[in-house]
């Protein structure tokens, strides 16, 4: 029983040549041109940028100009404060100098007393 079944299976599964004209018929049945399945992906966000790109660039330029202007103004103010502080220091330095020269003048011109010594060259 089993042997018959196996023989029958072998017989049915044996390699059989394709019928005449099978390949031609199969090729004829295929569509002549396959359509491309590639889909171009265009992000939706790219479309608004086309409309708002120039104004955005202008706004950015304006922002940079304002930022630079504020910075230049700040730098000028800092420099002015430094200059005013330096001029005040200068006047103070000249006053201290004059006070000490005055002291030297007094010491040189005052009549010598016991215990004082003065020289001038």
């Amino acid at each position: 029983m089993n042997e018959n079944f196996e023989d029958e299976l072998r017989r049915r599964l044996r390699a059989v040549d394709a019928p005449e004209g099978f390949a031609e018929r199969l090729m004829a049945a295929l569509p002549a041109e396959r359509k491309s399945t590639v889909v171009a992906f265009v992000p939706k966000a790219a479309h608004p940028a086309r409309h708002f790109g120039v104004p955005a660039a202008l706004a950015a330029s304006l922002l940079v100009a304002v930022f630079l202007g504020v910075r230049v103004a700040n730098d000028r103010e800092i420099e002015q404060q430094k200059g005013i502080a330096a001029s005040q220091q200068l006047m103070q330095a000249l006053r201290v100098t004059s006070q000490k020269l005055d002291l030297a003048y007094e010491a040189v011109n005052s009549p010598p007393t016991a215990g004082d010594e003065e020289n001038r060259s």
Partner: protein
Amino acid sequence: MNARVVLTLVALLSAGPAWAQSKGQLRIPEFSALSEKASETVTVTLDANLLGMAARFLSNEDPEQAKAKKLVSSLTGIYVRHYTFDTDYAYPKGDIDGVRRQLNAPGWSRIVGAVSKKENTTVDVFVLIDGEKAQGLAIIASEPREFTIVNIVGNIDLEQLHDLEGNFGVPDLEIDTGKKPAPAKPPAPVKPPAPAKPN
């Protein structure tokens, strides 16, 4: 051996800015510890850049500032350290002597030196003469409760310093400016009094 020489040269070159001071500029200690002890402190450090900046902010309208502006135009530095204390000799005399020693260098001349043992006051005025021009001025004044170091660097016009007299109280120290004094003006002719009109 060669590497050692190269390293020494590199070290000397890199250390250049540390000792590259203007002629007439003294190495004044920072005295940072004294600022806390002092009851009054004046610290002025104005190099050529800051002097230029300061001069731009001085008014030509104010005679005091106008003269100061003219004076500092040829200067390259002004350095002042002035400390006042509540107690006698609260400052290290050694630091002042260190500055004083720098003035023994060639070129520096002491034009005024006054010591009052009674009041324990010492005032020395030094000038650095290069050629016929004063390139530096130093004042070292010490009193029991205060000391002052002034160092003015640059082409100092002693006549302009004279001009400050009456503005900052700079006295006439009879500093020789190297210029001949202008000839005295002849006295104006005295007009004879007009004859009295007869009544």
